[in-house]
């Protein structure tokens, strides 16, 4: 399956991938681990995920075609 990845703010400066292919079942916690392995700088940033535009509050299963946004701390206003 293929997960689409969006990244924002300072995370967009360190993460360059826009999708991730895997044959294993995947959830948002698993995705975080995998991204932190590829981009160790991510471990030093407090970030949130959005799954299909909805902010993720707890671990969620991922399906092929899902869009996951990786969002550093907000600073609007």
């Amino acid at each position, binding site marked *: 399956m293929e997960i689409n990845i969006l990244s924002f703010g300072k995370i967009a400066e360190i993460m360059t991938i826009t999708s991730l292919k895997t044959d294993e079942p995947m959830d948002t916690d698993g995705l975080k681990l995998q991204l932190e392995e590829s981009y160790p700088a991510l471990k030093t940033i407090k970030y949130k995920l959005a799954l299909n535009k909805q902010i993720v509050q707890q671990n969620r299963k991922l399906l092929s075609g899902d869009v996951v946004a990786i969002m550093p701390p907000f*600073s609007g206003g």
Partner: protein
Amino acid sequence: MKEKNIKNIFVDGPISPAFIGGSIAKHSAKKEIGGHSIFLGQVRADEIDGKRVSAIDYTAYQETALEQMHAIRAEIFEKYNLTCMHVYQSLGTIKTGEICLFVFTSSAHRKPAIMACEEIVERLKAELPVWGREIFEDGTHHWKENI
């Protein structure tokens, strides 16, 4: 998925004082209003590690931000007896001294407008995926974080 009337809050570039004046003027026909509360965010020339901020470049995950704002709006109208509520957030490069946020609430008596305005400002800073990149005079940058 239920139908929603998702209002846009994003404007390209700074929010002009004339726009704010015009927005206030539009409310003179609403004779049930007794009080308006307005919050404006202005880009500050902060000094960070000896470097002076000259502008903030705002980006957003717009669709998610609008969904979040839609939920905040519904909860605010549920909680406070408001006549109107308007929110505008700038995107793009906003220079120091320019306005980047405009929150405007109105009610028959002053308390709901005042309390709602403050709560909206707090919530949108905490809950909307919007990012400000502080640009220094020397061209380098720093990612702002709301506290």
